[in-house]
């Protein structure tokens, strides 16, 4: 970096723990979400959804619904000319054509003057179904003869994998299911296979071989704001969408593709998003709402109910991993064999590569053979959920490492540290691990009192209870996406930053801090705006822990560009060389001559004066770098267990995480705490439970059990900083890592307390009690 980028004194920017700028708006209830927005002539939409997981639609009669006063449109598939068979994604399957493939799939849509009228209209639509056998269990769905889910010839959708994992597998390592594969079954939509070394020989030479099958059910992202969108067409055929989305540009592209509209004829306004966690990346209800608005010529708002969210959202896949590992008595790793099955629901789109990388190359297995399959079932199709497939995979590999260490009588942390891959060592795809702080994180966790005092905790159990401590290590490989940003100097010397970045997690304050430090003003002088798709530079998703990591670089470079322009203007004014200038307290000064200066206000004004010859300051940057920054987190759970009921009580929980550089420690802590509790939800309580007909049995927040404040202790956070070479100021992504370790940490703590190894999430009281009683847990 050249000398003009060096400031002589620190500005108030990167590294400060400061609250986000929209806090006061949020605590007063003034922030508007989609459901809060009204437009003149607004209509309300409802969708009629299939009660069957798999059925043929024989007949739909909408006459009575159409006749209901206040109903403005009743649409079925035949009313939507853009609909195609062989829909590659859920978004393309706007309404079912003649077959429904999951319970909750929309078959008809209503727009009415009032929500109550739209609801009444749904009751008046008569659908005759011919119920068909459903593929509900993913392992059975893989078998020949299982009821087919996709229409023959449907392309697997790998865009989610590309958007999220950014792990390039070498050619032939992942393939679409339509590639030649002798054992391919009808519902297997993607496969992957990676291997290295001689696995059979490795097992033959092992002293201890452990094999377990790990299962994590489908879980919902659980954002508090259900999916919502408001669509309005103008008379020129321009569509505006007010959307609750994690990526307005992605929403625009998907809707344009489904409806066959040019992207510059669609404006997506990213409204405040009430949580997404991966579930609001892909388009879901936007296309049908736009179609209803087009059919009625009126603005239409659609807000999903919680029941619809749980029955027909886009949850995380069920993940089943059979894992076999062999080691020498001295702890030398010998061989690993794994088969991963991702249950993707009715449409393809799960992420296979992340699982292979963590199974085969988080630890240094000299020989491995890892197969992965994405399997379709008659359930709602899945999407990303914060670090997709990483918590499930780490549940398997970390539980297995703990089990191996215990079998060998080795210290579990030392055993992990001894085998944890170092930067530069090969991943399963033979690409080198990028710089990461996994070892530093593990060392920090091992030094925590929960871990050091685990024997005392175990010994302190009151009568009738047992106590234990569990530690786990997991992480995220880091997301990437091209992105742009602009930074301008205003006539009053303040600075404005523009991106299209949807701010859910508090990233805008961090981006403002980056701009402040890179330009050379205090953060109070910087305002950042999230623009809509017409005004903002192209910006990626708020997903994959890549906002600060990638958009942060664009903002940093745009601010540096604006700084360079500012100094060039000042150099002319001061008759000095750019290299001799610095920005100090809102003034450009000549180094060592604090009296010679020109204020940012003067420079900003001259860029906006009639007849002025000074160009306005407008920094811009666009990035598309390829260097990932893996980020690791370790979590330690201190638990008490009632062996009679199987109930686990959390007495302490700590997250240790490598943030690279914590741009805003307050925001980083918030991410760590929230991610940890989502991780604990997967570990302890959450599952979408289906009956044998493929119907959800727990479609409410009473029965889909999320953790409450009363279930939890304070979540302690320890930030480790191992700078990444390419992130802004060394930052790494922080959103995903904390959701990864808890399932294994809890299972390890249960084993520490009660000497049983549980391999299925959630670790409910029933499951633990049955295991302790030596009985198989009932289907729950």
């Amino acid at each position: 970096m050249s000398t003009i980028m060096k400031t002589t004194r620190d500005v108030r920017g990167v590294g400060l723990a400061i609250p986000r700028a929209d806090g006061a708006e949020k605590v007063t209830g003034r922030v508007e979400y989609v459901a809060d927005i009204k437009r003149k002539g607004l209509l309300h939409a409802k969708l009629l959804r299939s009660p069957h997981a798999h059925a043929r639609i024989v007949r739909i009669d909408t006459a009575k619904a159409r006749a209901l006063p206040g109903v403005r449109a009743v649409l079925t598939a035949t009313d939507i000319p853009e609909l195609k068979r062989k829909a590659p994604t859920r978004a393309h399957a706007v309404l079912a054509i003649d077959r429904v493939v999951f319970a909750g799939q929309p078959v008809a849509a209503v727009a009415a003057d009032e929500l109550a009228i739209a609801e009444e209209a749904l009751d008046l639509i008569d659908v005759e179904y011919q119920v068909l056998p459903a593929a509900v269990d993913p392992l059975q769905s893989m078998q020949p003869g299982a009821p087919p889910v996709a229409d023959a010839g449907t392309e697997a959708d790998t865009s989610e994998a590309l958007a999220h994992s950014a792990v390039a597998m070498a050619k032939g390592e992942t393939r679409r299911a339509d590639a030649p594969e002798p054992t391919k079954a009808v519902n297997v939509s993607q496969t992957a296979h990676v291997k290295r070394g001689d696995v059979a020989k490795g097992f033959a030479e092992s002293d201890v071989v452990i094999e377990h099958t790990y299962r994590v059910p489908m879980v919902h992202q659980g954002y508090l704001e259900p999916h919502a969108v408001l669509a309005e067409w103008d008379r020129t055929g321009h569509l505006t969408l007010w959307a609750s989305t994690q990526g307005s540009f992605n929403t625009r592209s998907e809707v344009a593709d489904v409806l066959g509209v040019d992207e510059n004829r669609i404006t997506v306004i990213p409204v405040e998003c009430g949580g997404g966690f991966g579930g609001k990346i892909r388009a879901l209800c936007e296309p049908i709402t736009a179609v209803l608005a087009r059919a009625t010529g009126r603005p239409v708002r659609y807000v999903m109910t919680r029941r619809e969210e749980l029955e027909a959202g886009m949850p995380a896949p069920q993940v089943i991993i059979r894992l076999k590992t062999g080691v020498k008595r001295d702890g030398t790793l010998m061989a690993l064999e794994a088969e991963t099955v991702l249950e993707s629901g009715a449409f393809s789109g799960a992420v296979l590569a992340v699982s292979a990388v963590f199974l085969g190359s988080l630890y240094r297995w000299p020989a491995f053979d890892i197969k992965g399959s994405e399997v379709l079932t008659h359930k709602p199709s899945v999407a990303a959920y914060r670090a997709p497939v990483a918590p499930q995979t780490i549940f398997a590999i970390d539980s297995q490492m703990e089990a191996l260490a215990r079998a060998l009588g080795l210290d579990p942390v030392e055993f992990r540290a001894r085998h944890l891959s170092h930067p530069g060592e090969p991943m399963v795809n033979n690409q080198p691990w990028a710089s990461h702080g996994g070892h530093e994180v593990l060392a920090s966790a091992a030094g925590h009192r929960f871990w050091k005092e685990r024997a005392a905790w175990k010994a302190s159990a009151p009568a009738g209870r047992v106590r234990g401590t569990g530690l786990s290590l997991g992480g995220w490989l880091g997301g990437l996406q091209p992105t742009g940003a602009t930074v301008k100097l205003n006539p009053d010397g303040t600075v404005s930053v523009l991106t299209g970045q949807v701010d859910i997690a508090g990233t805008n304050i961090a981006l403002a801090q980056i701009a402040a430090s890179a330009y050379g003003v205090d953060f109070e002088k910087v305002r950042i705006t999230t623009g809509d798709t017409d005004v903002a530079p192209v910006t990626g998703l708020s997903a994959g822990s890549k906002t600060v990591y990638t958009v942060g670089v664009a903002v940093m470079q745009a601010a540096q560009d604006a700084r360079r322009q500012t100094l060039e203007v000042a150099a002319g004014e001061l008759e000095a060389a750019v290299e001799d200038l610095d920005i100090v307290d809102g003034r450009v000064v000549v180094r060592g001559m604090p009296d010679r200066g020109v204020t940012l206000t003067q420079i900003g004004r001259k860029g906006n004066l009639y007849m002025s010859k000074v160009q306005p300051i407008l920094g811009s940057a666009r990035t598309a770098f390829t260097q990932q920054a893996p980020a690791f987190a370790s979590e330690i759970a201190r638990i008490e267990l009632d062996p009679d009921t199987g109930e686990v009580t959390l007495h302490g929980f700590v997250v240790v995480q490598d943030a690279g550089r914590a741009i805003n420690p307050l925001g980083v802590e918030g991410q760590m705490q929230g991610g940890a509790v989502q991780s604990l939800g997967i570990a302890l309580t959450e599952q979408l439970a289906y009956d044998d007909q493929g119907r959800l049995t727990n479609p409410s927040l009473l029965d889909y059990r999320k953790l409450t404040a009363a279930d939890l202790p304070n979540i302690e956070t320890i930030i480790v900083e191992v700078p990444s070479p390419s992130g802004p100021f060394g930052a790494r992504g922080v959103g995903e890592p904390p959701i990864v370790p808890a399932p294994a940490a809890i299972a390890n703590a249960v084993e520490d307390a009660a000497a049983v190894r549980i391999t299925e999430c959630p670790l409910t009281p029933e499951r633990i009690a049955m295991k302790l009683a030596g009985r198989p847990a009932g289907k729950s």
Partner: protein
Amino acid sequence: MAKQVLSCTINDEPVEVLIQPYSTLLDALREDLGLTGPKEGCGTGDCGACTVHLDGQPVASCLVLAMQARNRNVRTIEGLAKGALHPLQDAFVRHGAPQCGFCIPGVLMAAAALLEANPRPTEEEIRYGIAGNLCRCTGYTKIVAAIAEAATLTSEGARA
């Protein structure tokens, strides 16, 4: 169905509004009165995002018929601050408690009712006091800390 007149007090202002007799209090507030601070996260009383005060008691407004509020006092998040931010709101901002913010109006109303009834709650009492309010972003730690600090500040202020 014929609309009915609802007369009540909302955020210290007398209100008369025509509503559908089947309207929930939440729908009446949001759709008929433009008070969109209370949120609908579930519609079944499980998430707490719609929490308002009815005669000082916290209720899930999605489970209350609007007509049940007749001649009673309703307070929503819009009426929590009288002028400057309420100490709870101020503490939430400083602690970085809001992330996506969708649950926050309900959490604040539950917390305000808790501190009315119990000005110096223990951490456990705070956790149980907001146990009916789901938050998916924060893991509750900063929310609990903010409530504890607001309780300390206001009860010290009351003593001074």
